[in-house]
């Protein structure tokens, strides 16, 4: 067969989806997606597992190729309205992502942040649901303006969910988690 490889295989996407789900339920825990990303980056694998034609995607920093956008199948939308936003963590945040509303908090965006490294670098202190007392997440290459911006976007149940990604690894920070730098 003229095969399509990871991260586009249904088997790989199921594994990545499982890993993302696990990371959501244990905020700050680092998951290695290396086995399922093929030659791409973890951010693309996460989006491939989460997006389909029923979702919307914004790529304000042009991190995805035309081919990847086409294969993801998600409809393009403005960064302030999209269900999924992929952004470069090295740059300061631009347009605020969708936060949802009190009646529809599920419309809050999932922000996929491309970092230099996840699991290495300066420590972030995490507290909230899913973390016993206090957790720690190390991440490198994130513009410091992201954290106050995120704090402003998140007022649970409204807010923005974060997936931090490097080349192979991801860590999730749901909107209900407080982050101290």
């Amino acid at each position: 067969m003229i095969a399509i490889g990871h991260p586009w295989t249904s088997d790989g996407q199921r594994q990545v989806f499982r890993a993302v789900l696990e990371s959501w339920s244990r905020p700050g825990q680092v998951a290695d997606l290396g086995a399922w990303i093929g030659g791409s980056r973890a951010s693309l694998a996460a989006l491939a597992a989460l997006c389909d034609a029923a979702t919307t995607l914004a790529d304000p920093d042009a991190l995805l190729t035309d081919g990847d956008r086409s294969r993801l199948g998600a409809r393009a939308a403005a960064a302030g309205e999209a269900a999924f936003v992929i952004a470069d963590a090295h740059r300061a945040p631009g347009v605020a992502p969708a936060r949802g509303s009190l009646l529809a908090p599920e419309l809050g965006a999932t922000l996929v942040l491309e970092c230099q490294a996840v699991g290495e670098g300066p420590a972030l202190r995490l507290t909230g649901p899913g973390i016993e007392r206090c957790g720690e997440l190390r991440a490198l290459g994130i513009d410091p303006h992201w954290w106050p911006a995120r704090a402003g976007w998140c007022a649970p149940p409204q807010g923005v969910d974060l997936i931090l990604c490097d080349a192979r690894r991801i860590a999730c920070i749901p909107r209900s988690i407080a982050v101290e730098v």
Partner: protein
Amino acid sequence: MPDNDLAFAPREAVLDLAAALAEGRRVEHLSVPQEGLWLLQLREPVRGDGWYVGEVPVGQACVALHDPALGCASGGAVLMHADRELAVAAAVCDAVERSGWPGAEEVACLRASGAAVLQAAAAERAAILERTRVGFNELGQEDA
């Protein structure tokens, strides 16, 4: 639905031809090949409500073939078969045939063989249907 002609050609012949046509070329998947059921939605004309009339098994693929000498050719296929592998092969054949690359004649032959199978099935169905025709004319009246 010319795509569907290839779905009725011998499956192994389509796969073998597509593999031969892809030899030495890079196959780029422009969308993720899919297989599954499509829900057929109709919209009723008064209130505009949508409702589902039924499901159709479908395989679909969209590819670009990159040839070092000939350039790039893209093609796609939507088959009424939940067969991802066959859809990819049909998309490769479609790309070659659309661009008129060497091998287009073989694709046309396979398409014709599939169309012949479809026509034979349609003729067989028409013959069966013909036998079920009921005349509602009153006795003694001639057909118009």
